[in-house]
């Protein structure tokens, strides 16, 4: 799309949406949000970028193929369930640790790895669909 306003605004929008998607992802453990919602926001950011600058630009910026990103997400989610094997707990049991970083305690958990995996699955698959649809417009 060749509108000047749209092309000027899009980089800012994309950045904002990507940052917001990470915020939604991380806040999602105890509040509304999470991997799925965050992933959808990130995928729409890539879709907007594709409308403004063309699909090749997005593919270059992503570097990895969207389906590979989705595959990595699925892998991360599945593997996040495995550490509980070592502790004699059922699959996917949440394990927490709160290391101290610069005087602040940071909550890390396998649940978070799972949620990041979901985020990547959604980003990968929806970006893949969106880019495939945008590709077809020029045929």
């Amino acid at each position, binding site marked *: 799309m060749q509108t000047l306003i749209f092309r000027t605004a899009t980089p800012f929008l994309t950045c904002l949406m990507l940052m917001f998607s990470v915020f939604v992802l991380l806040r999602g453990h105890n509040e509304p949000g999470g991997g799925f919602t965050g992933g959808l926001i990130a995928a729409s950011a890539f879709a907007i970028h594709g409308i403004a600058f063309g699909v090749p630009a997005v593919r270059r910026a992503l570097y990895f193929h969207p389906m590979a990103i989705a*595959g990595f997400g699925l892998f991360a989610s599945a593997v996040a369930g495995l550490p509980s094997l070592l502790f*004699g707990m059922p699959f996917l049991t949440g394990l927490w640790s709160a290391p101290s970083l610069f005087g602040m305690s940071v909550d890390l958990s396998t649940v978070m790895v799972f949620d990041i995996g979901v985020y990547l699955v959604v980003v990968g698959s929806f970006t893949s669909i969106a880019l495939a649809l945008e590709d077809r417009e020029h045929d």
Partner: protein
Amino acid sequence: MIAGPIAAADWLVIAPVLLPIVAGAVLLMIRHNVRWHALLALVVLAAMAGTNGLLLRMVLDKGPVSMTMGSWLPPFGISFTVDALGAAFSLTASIVALVCCAYSVRDVDATGRRYGFYPFLMLMMAGVSGAFLTGDMFNLYVWFEVFLISSFGLLILGSEKAQIDGATKYAILNLVGTTLFLIATGYLYGTFGTLNMADLATKAGQIGEAAPLMTLATLYLLAFSMKAAAFPLNFWLPASYHTPPVITGALFGGLLTKVGIYALLRTLVMIFAAERLVLAGVIGWVAVATMLIGALGALAQSDIRRIAGFLVISGVGIMLAGIALGSSGGLSGAIFYALHSMLALSALYLLGGLMRQRGGSFSLHRLSGLYGASPILAGLAFIVSLAVAGLPPGSGLWPKVMLVRAALDVGAWQIAAAILLSGFLATIALGRVFILAFWRVEVSGDQTTTAGALSALGCTALVVLVLAMLAMGIAPEPFIRIATTAASGLLDASAYVHAVFPAGIGS
């Protein structure tokens, strides 16, 4: 809230699902390195078969096992609960998938691999094993969706016009089926406030007239019959299963309809036992119609893949007959038949693929003189035909004997007659294939077909299936024992419930 530590052996419950998911994810990441796909898929399917074997042994030794994800307590967490039924189905499915995967190494070309044949295969197997092993109604729905979406992918691999046409029919009918399944599950949750199968099996008996259980049971019957391709909802199967590569047909024909049968066994026999009794007459006639329509359809076709498609339907009718009878003998017969049918129908599709390799066509109008060209293939075809038709020494005989006896015990003569008649018709249909493709003197003239040599790997794959079927047919006792254990586990769910709730429900 947190349950105590569990033994590492309990992880066998989840391993057959986890392995293909992780493998599918890795294959998605290395999508363009197609050289590694087949090897990784074979290794993972072999590992799946191994873990399924260990799981079946554990279940036969110790009774049903259960694991609830994330240390939540059932019925709030999602439980994977495995009894002899689930483990036996899952084991057979993984063996069939392993054999089909070995066959596919030569059959799926580079384009098919780049489009993701192996990732789809892995995710489909994750869905199929998940459906067999889960102990939660909504989770069953999720696994249905997983294998359905992967099967859409497999079905349109290659994007030919006939494939898109077949896939549309397949997709629409199956989406309607799963939507009904979802509606029924929502209704179920509204009624019982739980989705855990063990919990449901207990509460369905107690709730009595206070809830519309008949509606629920009928909805599930409709949804799963659609998935299993029972009459009159069977037309999508022959319209779609012959369009993709033969290996996809083998996987679908062998495994997917059995998931529908498995779900029917789980819901109608274990959970809605009283309602099944009321529906038994309807299911019985549906079974009779499915058997005969399938066998007659097979007689009318000239494409081997279409014949196999109709024989899949006929087999579904035979399994439904066992569900209609509902007795221990009938259910064991149906379960044994399902195990046999996974092997036999996949073998029939693979046979079609090999006949095409040697004779250059799937059509009985073109195929001829294969007996002279390849006596080994003729021998394999003979045994596969016997097994599918239910004649000795193939594996189809004993489950049919069990079913006919169970039917005659309760005076259900129409079911017994239909089983025998459909077996007779299937024999004629397969005999026709044998006479035309193998015994007929080579028809010369039409040289448009491209005949070639048989692939050794493909032959080995078929030989493995044939040996398994012969083992089932000649030494059926261990299989009958597994089927009987599985059936008694369905009829008396107390061991299943105890595996999920060791301390009893509500404590």
